[in-house]
């Protein structure tokens, strides 16, 4: 297990012009660690972060898209893994923060939280490059693959909550946030 914010901080040191699609708690941590215009945090409806990311990746195959998903969110949209496998975007990376709870909704446990193997589900859905990362050292060792490897890539990150981040829903739902992203992404 690793702290989510410590894990994301390692990614924050390495990102350059990648679009980062982040949802809920991962988004709040990410905005604290790496505020930038190329953050896409306007997911709208829980569960469809990976779908937003797939649209971005298909629309701009020249740009790398990294999704920072949550396990509760992905559980609502497991079919998206098969959709990604079918569309096969080489510029798409799906990182799922696995903490076993619906953290934004009172930290109630996910069904079968201790038993679900997200990397196995992704592999079973047809994504060839999958894996589970349990330590910061492993994550650091995988960063080259995450940032430059041929997608689609899926990694389950086994995390616990770290330092609290401001839950700035006004920012993630704000029109200005979306406009800044679009201007940066289509540049």
């Amino acid at each position, binding site marked *: 297990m690793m702290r989510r914010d410590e894990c994301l901080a390692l990614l924050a040191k390495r990102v350059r012009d990648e679009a980062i699609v982040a949802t809920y708690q991962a988004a709040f941590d990410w905005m604290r660690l790496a505020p930038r215009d190329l953050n896409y945090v306007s997911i709208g409806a829980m569960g469809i972060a990976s779908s937003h990311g797939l649209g971005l990746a298909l*629309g701009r195959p020249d740009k790398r898209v990294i999704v920072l998903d949550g396990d509760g969110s992905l559980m609502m949209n497991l079919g998206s893994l098969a*959709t990604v496998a079918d569309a096969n975007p080489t510029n798409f990376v799906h990182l799922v923060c696995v903490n076993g709870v619906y953290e934004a909704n009172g930290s109630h446990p996910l069904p079968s939280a201790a038993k679900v193997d997200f990397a196995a589900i992704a592999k079973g859905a047809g994504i060839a490059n999958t894996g589970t990362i349990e330590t910061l050292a492993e994550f650091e060792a995988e960063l080259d693959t995450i940032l430059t490897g041929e997608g689609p890539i899926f990694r389950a990150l086994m995390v616990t909550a770290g330092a609290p981040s401001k839950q700035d829903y006004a920012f993630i739902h704000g029109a200005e946030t979306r406009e800044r992203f679009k201007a940066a992404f*289509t540049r």
Partner: protein
Amino acid sequence: MSAPRGSAILAALKTAGIEFVVALPDIVTSDGLLWPLARQNDIRLVRICKEDEGIGICAGLGFAGKRSILMMQQTGLMDSVNALRAVGVEYEQPIAMLVGLQGKEPGVLPSKSGKVSVSAIEPILDALGVDHVLVETQDDEAKIAPAFERAFKTSRPVCVLIGTPPLADGATK
């Protein structure tokens, strides 16, 4: 009145500059439109597992500057209402939808249908403030490209409801 032609709908998509069709199969549009779409290469077909995925994919494509439509049955539209509300309506994104009205009785307006699955659709769209047009005949084909243009020009969702199965190439009725 003749049913709309799938070839005319496909032409309307091209007129509206659609580059991606994100779709779940719908029995109303399957033969006349989705299969022909699957056999051509000008517009990329993205097959999805659940309709609300399509809302996210279309939004992402829009942020990338690409025009897309989401094709589905009205049952899938009902399943996607929260995503449409959040992403299309509240975020003001141009979610362009082409929705088959499965089970609609021929010649009966959706609002007069005896099936809740049909009669509920326009009121749901009205409650969300989503612009919609009905396509039942060849006379209605001309509504399609302007409806999708409206979605992209106003950055708002628009729904084209298909009330009659479109004719496949070579079919006359």
